[in-house]
């Protein structure tokens, strides 16, 4: 079944704010094997001009995955996760994510388009602090294999 394109432009509840701790950043950096000392050394981070420990550039995607469950699980959209692969990702930062940030998100289905027999579902998650300071925009494109309208498998 093709995805329900009437949901393009719809916003979703992002769930609770995401509290970014120094411990979580260290844990994530260690998980990607990144031993740069800045993830554990507040003085070094400040010497580099940061207000606190910065997160690796892809950390915004961790937050967006948590906040972006609404569209992924919306039965009206009709996304079959067994057909889904990750197609594209973009993280555009107004500034790095820092330890101490409490992040809130605006989650939207930005577009659904055809690519051969597949459909590309674009989910946008705009992250800001609770005080309203923009932090980053995370764009995730999921490939829904074989569901394009008119496709044999659709």
């Amino acid at each position, binding site marked *: 079944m093709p995805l329900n394109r009437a949901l393009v432009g719809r916003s979703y509840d992002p769930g609770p704010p995401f509290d970014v701790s120094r411990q979580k950043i260290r844990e*994530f950096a260690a998980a*990607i094997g990144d031993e740069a000392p*800045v993830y554990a050394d507040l003085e070094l981070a400040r010497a580099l001009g940061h207000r606190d420990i910065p997160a*690796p550039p892809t950390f915004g995607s961790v937050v967006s995955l948590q906040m972006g469950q609404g569209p992924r699980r919306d039965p009206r959209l009709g996304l079959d996760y067994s057909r889904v692969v990750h197609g594209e990702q973009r*993280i555009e930062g107004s500034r790095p994510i820092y330890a101490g940030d409490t992040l809130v998100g605006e989650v939207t289905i930005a577009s659904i388009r055809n690519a051969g027999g597949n459909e590309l579902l674009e989910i946008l998650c705009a992250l800001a602090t609770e005080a309203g300071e923009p932090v980053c925009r995370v764009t995730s494109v999921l490939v829904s294999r074989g569901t394009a309208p008119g496709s044999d498998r659709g």
Partner: protein
Amino acid sequence: MAEGRRSAAAVGIGDRIGPRGFELDRARLVRYAGAALDFNSIHWSDQAAERAGLPEVIAHGMLTMALAGRLVTDWAGDPGAVEDFSTRFSGMVPVGVEGPAMVVVEGTVTELLDGGRVVVELTVEAGRSAVLKAARAVVNLAPSSPGI
């Protein structure tokens, strides 16, 4: 890293970064799943991977992207230097039980923008085929002011 952010003045179009190889084994995938809160079972269960039509467990695309990011942030001297980071996922990285997979990342400076910002384009391969395509980072090499 302790030297601080790389100076844009010493960077030119065509500068190469790497190549650098990163090993990915099953333990790494499990650790990434936990830290990234991404528990899709195709990244840790052979049975789940098989049901999804995959030859074996594959690495998270975001883990592969993070390795490409490490090349850039180590080169820039500051993880906060990356302003815009994007890619398409064009291939899978199978990670078997018998040994680690090798992901090879190489970067090239392709544009000099205003304000000390540069564009780095990245090639990311596993088993000699591209697993990321159009991987691109905009890196701000100007020193940031304290207390932003």
